[in-house]
């Protein structure tokens, strides 16, 4: 008798459990995907069809909106700007942060603590709060409307993040591994390249992806420091689309949105495992 009770309880328990998990899981999936899916659907629709809210799926899916975006005057330039700035603002801060993280995790030196703090405190400074003084500084230096201003500001704001991640990864590598390389006569540069970086590679990849994300999606700095049409990045242009398109073509608007989001999502999909693992393991904070 007890057994049967146990079995029925078990069934109840499992049913209850799958509802308890299934409902929030469905909400999670819908909540996460709907904004993107809706934009994708709209980008394939006929512009007039979007106004008639009685359709969910596009009646005659067409790529016209994407063709319009790709042939927009300036699209090539904005895409180039975004890619160029992102590449520089990923490689430079990553290189600088690898050196800094090595210094912090492998040496005991005076002021180590306070220097590390100076690296990390900027992480709680809201980026948007800096746009007023930065605009002032960069105007004085004559750097407004140049790639330099984006390289410099993006690099500066990516370094604390990347260094923080890498200090964690480098610090978890046992010193003995490196010491054996020292005995073999490897200098610091070789130890970093042959020993530390291969072991901490997941950390470097994660830091890299997050630098790419910061630069690709950045808006406050580019809004404050760039005002020439040719120097805009894709998010900036997406924002300006609101004003520059007289009659709103929602299909084109959505296609533009998808095209600005897609490259970064592809990078994420390729490296998803490393990034998710790093965040879940608490290496990214």
């Amino acid at each position, binding site marked *: 008798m007890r057994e049967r009770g146990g079995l029925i309880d078990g069934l109840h328990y499992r049913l209850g459990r799958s509802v308890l998990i299934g409902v929030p899981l469905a909400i999670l999936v819908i909540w996460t995907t709907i904004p993107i899916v809706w934009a994708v659907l709209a980008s394939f629709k006929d512009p007039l069809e979007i106004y008639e809210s009685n359709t969910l799926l596009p009646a005659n899916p067409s790529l016209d909106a994407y063709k319009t975006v790709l042939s927009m005057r300036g699209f090539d330039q904005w895409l180039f700007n975004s890619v160029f700035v992102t590449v520089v603002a990923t490689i430079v801060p990553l290189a600088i942060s690898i050196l800094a993280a090595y210094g912090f995790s492998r040496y005991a030196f005076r002021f180590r603590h306070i220097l590390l703090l100076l690296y990390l405190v900027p992480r709680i400074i809201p980026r948007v709060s800096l746009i007023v003084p930065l605009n002032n500084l960069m105007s004085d230096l004559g750097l407004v409307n140049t790639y330099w201003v984006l390289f410099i500001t993006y690099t500066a704001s990516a370094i604390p993040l990347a260094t923080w991640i890498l200090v964690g990864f480098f610090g978890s590598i046992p010193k003995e591994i490196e010491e054996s390389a020292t005995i073999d006569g490897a200098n610091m540069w070789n130890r970093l390249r042959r020993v530390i970086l291969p072991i901490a590679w997941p950390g470097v990849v994660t830091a890299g992806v997050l630098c790419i994300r910061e630069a690709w999606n950045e808006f406050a700095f580019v809004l404050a420091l760039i005002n020439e049409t040719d120097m805009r990045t894709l998010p900036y242009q997406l924002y300006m689309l609101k004003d520059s398109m007289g009659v709103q073509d929602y299909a084109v608007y959505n296609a533009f949105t998808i095209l600005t989001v897609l490259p970064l999502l592809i990078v994420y999909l390729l490296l998803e495992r490393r990034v998710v693992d790093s965040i879940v393991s*608490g290496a990214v904070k």
Partner: protein
Amino acid sequence: MSTTRHDLDVLTAGERASEFVKLLAPYILVIPGLAFVLGVLGYAVVGGVGLSLNETDMFLNQTFVGLKNYVSIFEDPRFQSSLWKTIVFVVSSIALGIVMSMVFALTLYHVGFGRRFFRGLSLVPYFVSGIAAAVMFRFIFTTSGGFVNYILESFGLPAPSWLGDPILAFIVAVLANCWFMVPFATLILLGGLQTIDRDIYEAAKLDGATGLKTFFRITLPLIKPMMGVSLIWVSYISFSTFDIILALTAGGPLRATELISVYMYEIAFLQLDFGQGSVLMVVLLTFNTVLSLVYLKFFVLNDRRYKTAT
């Protein structure tokens, strides 16, 4: 190493140089990054405080005026109202954001199939720019042709003008902000859940603890540090929300969503008053720093495990 040269206790010039380099090495490694961080971010903070104490005239000449900008900003009714809106926005974003993150984290922790897939999927919004997220939310909530009203109408319910109504627009802004910030907090909390030893739950079950009791008495205290990190993240994002608001509502309708960051942009870049704009920067910075320190103190530093680890 010099210990092998026991016949001479004086180092040769070359050795002395290499000792010197070794001593300097960490500084050399650390300084380039520091130059960027202090030169750009540090300068901006100090420069911003400086600007807030000065008045800039139309020829960009600056005169020191002390706290005058602060006084006029704090007396400005538009600032007072944007301060209240920011507080309501941040508090409701944190409340909704943390509950959602916790529910999603528990879901991802317990899900029995496709765990990797759902985890990967849950982080996707983290990679969508604030501008794109705002544009997507605009199209979900547009009056005709929006997804939400499509659903409402198909159930025969009234279709409101979401972004035309001050209160509804504020709610949509909070939702868009949550969409953007919840994924990262979810994975941080999931990481916390995964560190908990499953035996603890078995023991609690034997003691007759129910689900909710287990959650509040065991799970929550054990993930306190991750909760602190998530809270820092969601309040940081909510305080600095700027791109989402600008692209979603541009502060409207009727300034209903004009948060401090949006007002700061307007004062500094449209009215070209750098002094008062910088006052708002100082306000934003102070709020965010104080809040972060409070979380650090209560959630991370006070945690027993952190204390034993250091």
